[in-house]
């Protein structure tokens, strides 16, 4: 008997899916295009050639050389030379340059006479990624120039090269950045934003499909076809979605890891398996939202809200430990957080599956949880009320 009801409900779900071209658009075209857009925009990987300016009041051969080397650096590109500070400031204001390097008057003379002149670099931190690149470039050039002077002095007193190096930089740091030694921005940002975008689409489509049943008043029929079994009705209706979304999700993963070369340092199966879990967990989350508010508008509002805010709550760009604790806690209420954590463990760091066990379990939990509360939706289905 259960088999018969399941077959009928499944058939009904399939027919609904096929009859509306919007589903195809929102489940296949938009997720793929959106994920592609995010990755393709950042495919250059690192910000290079940030447009900057130079204010050179010294105009000596030393300052000219400094500017030439600065321009040759990959981080920045000198767009303009300014006569004075004010002009540079105006250029920053109209967005022509994002920062500038300021060389004071008589710099060379001061150095040669043993004084300590100060060069300054003005970096516009309203543009975050370019700002850190500028900082890196400006800082390096300043230290290089300083080192050049020291080297000349030490060589004249006859110190060997090794000792000169050790004097100029007594402590050296070796940076080890496992998984992303190139500091590739795309690898870092797309690893979290692309799945989160996909999760948003799942949430919204699921909310929409459940909501339309309630709105059109066809929910009674939906329930009747499944033999008044709410769990069966939801499952059978959503299974076609699950299959389609999982296929799209695998395609997105293929784009991520093979086309755009995001780090995948684990057995690919670990991530492939996580995809259907992510799909079902998000569907489960959407159903859960309807259990709380069985109303089309509130249900979709909640799902959209949580989907959009998870980009911030889940600490993809601002690290978790520096958020307010309650904000970080909300992050743990959405499934994408667990997918993110497990992808960090598996795809990026490639550590043992053992450390990610909790995250996989949490995703499974999101699938089971709404089934317990499904009586709330059932109640609403029996007495559908549409409030616009």
């Amino acid at each position, binding site marked *: 008997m259960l088999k018969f009801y399941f077959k009928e409900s499944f058939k009904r779900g399939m*027919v*609904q899916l096929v*009859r*509306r071209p*919007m589903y195809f658009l929102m489940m296949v075209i938009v997720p793929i295009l*959106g994920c592609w857009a995010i990755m393709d*925009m950042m495919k250059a990987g690192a*910000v290079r050639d*940030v447009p900057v300016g130079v204010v050179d009041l010294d105009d000596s051969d030393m300052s000219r050389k400094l500017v030439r080397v600065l321009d040759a650096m990959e981080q920045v590109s000198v767009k303009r030379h300014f006569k004075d500070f004010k002009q540079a400031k105006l250029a*920053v*204001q*109209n*967005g022509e340059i994002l920062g500038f390097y300021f060389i004071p008057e008589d710099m060379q003379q*001061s*150095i040669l006479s043993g004084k*300590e002149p*100060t*060069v*300054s670099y003005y*970096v*516009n*931190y*309203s543009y*975050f*990624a*370019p*700002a850190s690149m500028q*900082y890196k470039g*400006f*800082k390096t050039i300043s230290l290089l120039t*300083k080192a050049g002077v*020291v080297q000349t002095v030490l060589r004249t007193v006859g110190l060997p090269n090794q000792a000169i190096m*050790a004097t100029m930089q*007594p*402590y050296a740091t070796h*940076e*080890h950045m496992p998984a992303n030694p190139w500091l590739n*921005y795309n690898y870092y*940002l797309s*690893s979290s934003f692309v799945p989160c*975008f996909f999760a948003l689409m799942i949430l*919204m*489509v699921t909310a*929409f499909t459940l*909501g339309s049943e309630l709105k059109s008043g*066809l929910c009674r029929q939906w329930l009747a076809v499944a033999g008044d079994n709410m769990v069966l009705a939801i499952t059978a209706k959503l299974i076609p979605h699950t299959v389609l979304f999982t296929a799209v999700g695998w395609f997105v993963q293929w784009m991520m890891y093979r086309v755009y070369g995001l780090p995948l340092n684990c057995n690919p199966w670990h991530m492939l398996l996580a995809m259907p879990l992510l799909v079902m967990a998000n569907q489960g989350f959407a159903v859960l939202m309807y259990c709380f508010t069985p109303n089309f508008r509130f249900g*979709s509002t909640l*799902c959209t809200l949580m*989907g959009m805010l998870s980009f*911030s709550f889940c600490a*993809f*760009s*601002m*690290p978790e*430990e*520096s*958020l*307010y604790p309650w904000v970080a806690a909300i992050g743990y209420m959405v499934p994408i957080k667990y997918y993110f954590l497990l992808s960090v463990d598996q795809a990026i*760091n490639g550590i043992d599956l053992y450390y990610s066990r909790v995250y996989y379990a949490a995703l499974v939990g999101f699938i089971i949880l709404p089934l317990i509360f499904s009586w709330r939706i059932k109640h609403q289905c029996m007495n559908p009320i549409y409030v*616009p």
Partner: protein
Amino acid sequence: MKQWLLEVYRVWWREFRLVLRDEGVVIFFFVLCAVYPALYSIIYNTETERNMPIVVVDYCRTQASRELARRLDATPEVRIISYAANMQEARELMYRKKCYSIVYIPRDFSQCVARGQQGHVSMYCDMSVMFRYKSMLMAMTNVTQEMGGELQKKRLAPFTYGGIGLIQNRQIPIGNTAMGMASAVLLFILPLVIQQSMLLGIGMLHGGSIERRRRNRGYDPMEEPAGICATLIGKMMCHQVVYVVPVVYVLHFTPMIFDFPQNANLLHSVALAVPFIIAVSFMGQTLQAFINERESVFLMLAYTSVIFVFLLGVSWPRFAMSRFWYVIGDCVPSTWMSNGYVLMQSSGATLNQISHYFYMLWLQCGVFFLLAYGVERFVSRPRYRHWQKKAAADPNALQRYDIIKNGVG
């Protein structure tokens, strides 16, 4: 002409009443604008990373290595939570997410320094969030340079008789002087919130109208009969009036409440917002053609925010995008508005200095008006006529169509 103005006025008045009557639209137009900026600001209000947990593996165990660790711990960026016996133990802590970075000081660290060679320190960093790497690097660079500088002075003293021309350097952050995350990101997001709330609201109004048409044989009883231009312009003027309060609140008071950079003149930012609102209104009236019922706005329009955020150039700068994405970004009003607004607010530019953005927004007004006109003339209105014809033949045709679409029958 007088007739036409009267038509515009009537459309304006009707749209105004529709907006205020519809709870969903009020939520989009007002509540969203009030809550979202505040919510985002609160999330990012901590601005920077403070005291990221790290672990030190000190094989050297000398005064120099302890001094290094002590100074690291004293930086605002990081905090040492533990000293691990070996790398194995430290790595275990990192895998369990107790710490996000490991500093490894090798056995010969202080020996090398004392011998007049370079002392080497290794740092391993979790790369899942770039911010962590940045804080760790910042702390490490500052500490090693500080200690190095002290040593350098001592070593150079005999050669230089007190004075050697060493260039000092300093960074002066401008625009966002706090160098905080919220101050950088939120200023970009604020205009986008206005745009998205408007698109959603306009879409929902249109969805409501379509639903009324389906129930009423293709006619919308709430619609004011008017020419296409009068309809578009009347609605646009209504949106302009409705958005006076949200624009001032979002663009002026939100930065004030959360202490973001506020160097813009209120008049100038409002002046920039005028063409922005017009452009977005026409954009909404173009996109509304895709909306067939009230609730599908969530599905059809909400996700665009994510794409638009990227197009703004907030996480990845616009000059580094490929030509293709750059041009796509040019087509969205929020790109011009946000970038212009950020220049005004953080760098203190006047409207005159960013006139390019202002003119581009006016250009967009024109383009989106033509698009909206085309959609209304060649898509929407023929469709309504088609429906009316269909309903005249069979009064239940439209509603039946609705049911069939939901997969039943």
